[in-house]
């Protein structure tokens, strides 16, 4: 079909032997999760920015507001370690997956247990603080505390629920490697953003 006049240009326009097979550059599930986590990071960045602005707008002696309870730094510090341990267990589960899907189940269960303990202890802390008079309405201090920590808690609970279902599928050998990677990535996000929030909100 090509004419003789400009064979050279025509040849240059044809790619040298396109590869027949099609490959994913980054696995679908993983890429989708990376994008989702990016949006989530921006959500938390927005919350933290809002917190920083309101906090900076307050007089120095009004933050935390007088008469309001102080946040339990040590207790939550211990809790933070629990959550980090959970992240470590999840990472270990990911390594074990290479040896077989069922090998990954115990570390993942341990991770879920630690994560659930974290959520439960945070809930206990909330109940105490509410009892002591720190509520969402009592001051911007309280509002931001419950907003930021609560947003993280929603993520943690949602991740735990999804991961529990995924663990069942993992045990049945139905969970694909990439889906497992994507889910673990979300858990790492939940774990790793927490120390940053702890630093900003508690310290």
């Amino acid at each position, binding site marked *: 079909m090509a004419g003789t006049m400009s064979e050279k240009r025509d040849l240059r326009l044809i*790619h040298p032997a396109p590869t027949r097979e099609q490959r994913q550059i980054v696995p679908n599930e993983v890429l989708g*999760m990376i994008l989702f986590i990016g949006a989530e990071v921006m959500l938390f960045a927005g919350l933290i920015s809002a917190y920083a602005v*309101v906090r900076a707008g307050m007089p120095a002696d009004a933050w935390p507001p007088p008469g309001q309870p102080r946040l339990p730094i040590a207790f939550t510090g211990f809790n933070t370690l629990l959550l980090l341990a959970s992240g470590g267990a999840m990472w270990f589960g990911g390594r074990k997956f290479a040896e077989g899907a069922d090998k990954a189940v115990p570390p993942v269960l341990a991770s879920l247990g630690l994560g659930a303990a974290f959520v439960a202890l945070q809930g206990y802390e909330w109940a105490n603080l509410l009892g002591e008079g720190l509520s969402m309405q009592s001051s911007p201090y309280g509002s931001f505390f419950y907003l930021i920590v609560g947003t993280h808690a929603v993520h943690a609970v949602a991740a735990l629920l999804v991961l529990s279902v995924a663990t069942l599928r993992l045990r049945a050998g139905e969970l694909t490697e990439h889906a497992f990677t994507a889910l673990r990535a979300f858990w790492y996000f939940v774990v790793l953003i927490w120390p940053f929030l702890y630093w900003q909100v508690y310290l």
Partner: protein
Amino acid sequence: MSEPASTHHAHGHGAHDDHHHEENFFLKYFWSTDHKVIGMQYLLTGMFMALFGGFFPYVFRMQLAFPGISVPFYGVVSPTEYNALVTNHGTVMIFWVAMPVLIAAFGNYLIPLMIGADDMVFPRLNRLSYQVFAVSVVVIIASFLVPQGGFGGAWTAYPPLSANPDYNLTPWGSTLWLVAVALEFIAFLIGGINFITTAMNSRAPGMRWSDVPMVVWMICIASILFMASVGPLMAGAVMLAFDQNLGTHFFDPKAGGDPILWQHLFWFFGHPEVYVVLLPATGIVAEVITTFSRKKLFGYKTILYTAIGTGVLSFFVWAHHQFIAGIDPRMANVFTVTTVLISIPIAEMMFLFIATLYGGSIRFKTPMLWALSFIALFMIGGVTGIPLGASGSDIYLHDSYYVIAHFHYTFFPIAIIGSFTALTYWFPKMFGRMMNETLGQVHFWITAIAVNGIFIPLFVLGAAGQHRRIYNYNHFAQLSTPDLQALRILATVSLVILLLAQFLFLFNFFYSMFFGEKASKNPWKGCTLEWTTESPPGHGNWPADQLPTVYRGPYEYGVEGRDEDYWPQNVPN
């Protein structure tokens, strides 16, 4: 959506075969995971919302031209209703017309077809995206029907007005408005993830980065921008919802909050959002211009770089919406620089589109007319952005009708002309029939002339000091002169003409859908992959054994020494 665990793979056709049995109507059109059906759902919902959001300006422009009259088909407009109408005109047109039609409808419809895939990589998430969007449509419509009526605090929803029912007097409307917007964001977040993943991983064999059609690139860049900017606004929306309903004081200065903070979070999203809808429209225009001028795109990579440059810069310009909002005046200097600089990549992109015409053989068919009018009109919007971005003149022009005229000269080309360009161009592919060319051209000329009749008077009114969102200018001595009123009437008459002309389009659209001339596979002789399949494409887009392979770039028109003046991407030689 923390489980994108769909095991569907781009070419895993075996899994699909059991779908080929006869599906009932509900499953086929409401529960489908086919990207074409979802794209069509988005398109039709967007068109419906365009009628909804297009009726509002008719009502409030009638009120402005003839204050106090009983508007035909509506009645007398009260200040509350006026505020709700202008607020929701903005919200609906951007979030329920421009976004769903340009990004979701054409993104869904075109991306798999243009990159030679059989569907999106996460088809079920895609369906979920539309379902969330459909709920948001119901919520925004419901916000008008609740006691005290729809939200009327401007589409920017600045607190404390939006946060406190004592101030805005629409306790239900403002909450529903916020919920609808938040749901809509979730829908597009899910959709955007799908678009980017699909475009990256499902490209046909042989399709390199530089073989991807421009519109796919643009939709992906827009989705990235959207996802990177929406987070802070979601954070702000949650805080605003808590302020409205839980008695918190995030934005209430009396209890230690900060009202400027919302503007901070809102415009961080709000300005990139402009480019989120602009880029897909420019992508559509690029496709149409190349096809109808029979020319390769002038500087494919440069256009891509200008789009990326625009995207990067769009994160640096947002505070120009706050020059006079009580932010630190020193910040205005920095944002003036970035805002004026963003004109450079956009101007360059327009130059490149115009340069594409050089040496072509231009056919003035309806889609081409729309695409060309996009360039001509968008340039007016572009150049009038400079006096607004320049802090010194913005002191006067801020919140005046000059702003309104400016952004309508950007958004009208983007949302309306961009959508018409795409609709008229891909109509044969979507419905397998051609639209009526004569009706299409009549509709084009009426619309393209009427739109100038609306917005050029508004530039003058804005320069004369008329501010936005005021339901009756007779309260201001300097604004109630007969000269200015004549301009308002001119704008209103043009608007009515423009709206009436849209019925021509609707007739053409639905008539051609059923009775139009049958379209061939490739009626415009385009090079991109969507023209290599049937019109309309069947389930799976191509027969399973005939998925295309790509051998060259998307715009090889007029290659010397060939019999045909186009060379489709999938033809080996």
